[in-house]
Every structure is written in C-alpha cells, then in structure tokens.
C-alpha cells in the first residue's frame, strides 16, 4: 500500500492506527490492495462473508441496509478519508451487517483480515479497538447530522 505514491500509509490514513503493533501494520500493508472503483461498485454485500476491511481514501461511500419488504435503503454516506468498513468481519459470524457501495468514483484500500485472524490475539485486540473507535465516531457523526437537520424540519 505504501508503494503507491499517492496512497498514504495505514497510520496516516486511519485515526488511532498508531495504536496498532508495528508487525500488524506491516502485515496489513503487505497484503493490502488499492482499488480505484467507479460509482456504484459494491464493496461489501449485506449478509455476505467479509474477508477485507475497506478503508476510504478518496471519493464517497454509501452504507445501505436491506429492510425486508422495502429493499436497500441508504442510511449513511461519507467522504471522510480513513473511514473503515467491514467491522463485522472481526466478529462472529463474520458477515456484513450492511451493504457498502461506492457512491462516487472512489479510491479505497482493501485490508485482508486473514493476517489478523491467524495472528496473535494482541493484533485482534488493537485492531478491534481502532475499528470500534471509528464506528463510535460514525455513530456520533450520524447523531450530529440528524441533530442539525431535525430543527430545520428537513427529512434527513
């Protein structure tokens, strides 16, 4: 991943990644793939097995949840560089809880989970902490976004 000049390192890209052991960062970066995807590309499919974490570098990512009887509804979009998707790959049963789709032409980094699954538990612990922190930030941002639209009477 660091080999591509325009792509930052994992530590530069992901908030809190400096907590990760150096060996883990090295293992993730060695196995990572940079993907340039066009708008509409599905990166994770809800209920499908998650093999990679997806990190947004540039572009826009939409999160969609399938509501039975209604279909996929967009519940979140972000252009936040360093946002991680695919958290459920680190938890049982390892299947995506939502569909993640490029909402614009985007660049993402795919981080395979295999090195973590077969690595020491400390790797799992630190990666889970960093990814959980990202999820907490996303939740907080959704709250803020909702909070600012409720008063305006806009149907967010």
């Amino acid at each position: 991943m660091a080999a591509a000049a325009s792509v930052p390192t994992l530590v530069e890209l992901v908030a809190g990644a400096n907590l990760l052991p150096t060996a883990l960062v090295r293992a993730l970066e060695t196995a990572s793939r940079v993907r340039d995807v066009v708008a509409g590309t599905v990166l994770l499919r809800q209920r499908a097995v998650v093999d990679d974490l997806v990190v947004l570098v540039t572009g826009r990512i939409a999160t969609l949840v399938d509501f039975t009887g209604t279909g996929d509804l967009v519940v979140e979009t972000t252009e936040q560089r360093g946002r991680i998707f695919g958290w459920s790959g680190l938890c049982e049963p390892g299947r995506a809880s939502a569909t993640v789709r490029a909402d614009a032409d985007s660049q993402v980094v795919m981080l395979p989970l295999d090195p973590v699954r077969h690595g020491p538990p400390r790797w799992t612990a630190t990666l889970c902490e960093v990814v959980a922190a990202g999820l907490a930030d996303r939740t907080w941002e959704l709250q803020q976004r909702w909070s600012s639209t409720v008063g305006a009477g806009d149907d967010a």
Partner: protein
Amino acid sequence: MRDTAAIRRWFAGLALLDQLHAADRDLFAEHAEWVGVGGGERVHGTGEPGTALWFLVEGQIILGAGSGAAADGVVRRAVTTPGYPVGWDGMVWPRRHRWDAVAASPARLLRVPRGVIDARGARDAAFAARFFRLLLWLAGGQLRGQHTRLVTARYDDETDAVAALITSRADELRVTSALHRIPAYLRSRPTVADAFRALEALRDGEDALEAQLAREALDLLAGVRRELRVYLGLQRVYEAVAGAPPDLEAAELRARSCRALVDLFAHTDYRIAGLDRLPTATGNIVLSNHLDSHPTNRLPNGFSLILDTHFVSSMLLYRTYGTAPVRVVRDSHWHEAGHARYYARLGYVMVPSAEADPLPAEGRSARYARFLDQASTVLHSGLDLVICPEGRTGPTAGSPQRLRIGAFALAARLDPEPLIVPVALAHFEERLSRTVLGAVVAEPFRLSDVIADPTDRDEVAAFVADDLTPRYRGWVREAAALR
C-alpha cells in the same frame, strides 16, 4: 454494602457478555463498585477521559448530546438493557467519551475501573482480544441501531418503528420467533405489558439475533414503557373507584382517586404556573378548558379517563388543599357502562348531555334546578366545584371553544358569591410520552367584580364571549408554551 457472590452471579447471567469467559466476568465482579445516580445526573460527559465501564443494573440511561434531555431514539437514545456497559466509547481510542450518559430516572450501575481492565489486558492478550471484540460488537450494534432508527424514526409511532425493525430482519428470524407477535401486542393497550415481558425474555434468551432486536426494540419503546406506566395508573385509578367496597363514602373515594392520580401524573412531564393564585380556601368554582383524550388512554371497557380535569382535581386542588373537589360531569350514555360505574361512585354533580340525550323543556328545567341545588350544596359545604364550561372536548389549539354560561349563572345565584378560578390546560390530548402537560392558574375573580349585574344573563353572556373567552385562549397559549 458489597456482595461479591451476588455480583458474580449477576455478571454470570448476562447474555450481553456471552462473548467473554467466566473468568473475565469474575474479574468485573471482583472489582465492581455500586454507583447510584439520580434522575438527570450524569454518569459521564462528552470529552471526559474514559476511566471506567458502568454496567447498567437498573434504570434508564440516555446516551447522546445534551445532558438531561429526553431520548428521541436518534440523537439521544435510551439504554435499558441490564448489563449494558455504559461508557464503552471512552474505552477505545482516543479514550475519551464521545457523548454524555445521563440517567433518565434513578439508576443503579456497577462501575469497573479502567485500570483493572487495562492491567488484565496487558498481562493477557487473549482477554484483551475478547474484551475489545466485545466493544467492537457493541459499537457495531450501536451503529446498526442508529441506521435502523434513522429509518424507523420516520414513523410517527414507536409501534410502527418496532414493527419496521422486526420486519427489516424478518427473513433472518425463525418463523416461530415470538418477535413476530410483538407488533400485535403493542397495538392493543391491554397487551402492551405482554409485549414488554416477551421482549425482555427474548433479550435475555439464547438467540443472538432475537436478543439484539429485542434490545433495540426495548430502547425504541422507552417512551411507550412510560405510557404503559401511565396506562396501568389509569387502570388503578379506575379500579380504586369502580371496584371500591359499596359502603365507602364518596368523599373518601374522591380522595383515593386523587391520590392514585397524583401517582399517575408522577410518570408524566408537566409544568404548572400560577399555583400561588389559588385562593387560600376551598369553596370556589374552578373552571377548566376541556381537551380531547388520546385514544391510547382508553381502558379495556371503552372508558376514557379524561386526564385534563383529573389533573385539575388531583395535581392542583388536592395537592394544594388536601381536599378532593367535586366535579360537574355529564350523564353516562346508555352504552357507557364503564363511565357509569366510575362516576356513580364519586358523588359528582351530574348534568344531561345535550348532544346525546336532548331533554324536553320541562325535563331540562327540572334537571337545571337539580344542578343548581346540588352544586350550591357542594359549594356551601366548602368544597371546590370543577366545571368545564365548554361541555365538550377539543384540541389545545383554539381552546377553549364556546364557553357556556351555566357556571357563571350558578355563581350569580349564590350567596356568598364564590370566587371563579380559571385554569388553562394544554397538550392533554397528546401522547403522554411525547409531550409536556401544561397548566396555568389565572387570577380568580368574582362575577360582581367584572360585570354590573351578574343576574343579567345577556350581560354575563357578553362578558363570557367577548372578554373572558379571548383571555382564556391566551392563558391556554401560556400553558402550551410551558416547557
């Protein structure tokens, strides 16, 4: 007092912590300290360092921005699940809390210091992996819940929101899952309590998906639970009266009813202004505008306890004077057995219902004479008489509608002339979990102070229509603005 064995058993029974080993839970139990927080008190605040996990034992914690505010399910969500680790957001990088955690009501929690968890994690990487995987699972569940709520919040009704939540995962649930029955339970007031029992059983059950959906549903339903308490309170009020021993005096029944109502309104959010304007003694005509009742307050026998006048009786008059007032109530219709059973016991002054049972002229005169006689007796005995001069209910906006002059004609005929105390009410027609009930006591007056000849019906009617009614609407607007 600390009972480690009991705390250990409690931690061992938490389905939410299934991912942890028994030894991990024992670690929490050994170092947990009881923490009690009062309603409105903060457990932790935004930006503060994460110094501990607080496992919720009982009560309700609101997570979100703006301490002390009510949960709306999206910006501020309610947590009621026993064992939920409040403060997990401060345990992950950058180890500061992202939101406030505030008790919505008195709550008890078990606090485990961060140092204990960090120390074990430093020695035992496998523990650290289990612990942070649990936090990741909680974080993912919270984000997923947030996504769901962003969709379900579009529903005006929590029942619809829960139905949508369950429907959204219907294809993953067992066809025999009790979750499928929850929306039907919620749609009928008498079975709402069954819905909560079923959801709590599912939340604590073996099926992870059912447990997750039950937790989300219970959080969505925090307001409904409050309404349920009100509804059960309504049933208690009704039974306290309709089911009382036949030899119990009406005055004692009215007092019992008021005490039950005071308990009931303790579960609501209300504001009262102008209590200091109430006269120093009872024996007054207390006017109230009359508001619709929300359909969800209808009892199983079809009877709706209209909450506005009960609020005046209990929260304003009984709490001030310690004496329950007498109300003027319309006759029960032939199909209103519940209404009849309730009001027949209370010794209220009954008047004909103009809409449903129009009386011939001579019947009207006889009933009016009876009304004057009974109402005068009440006032002369020193009790307050509560009257809704509109004679019908309506919404807060535009209330009161047309005020009839019967109450004023009564005042004009009495010697000594009683004080008239206008009370303006607002929002009683709304869902109790979503509103702030408002009441304003306006300045009392004697009819002879505001018109030259109180016995002149035309003069009284003109005063009521042209002077009092517009001012009354202003007081109602004041009551509606109390927040």
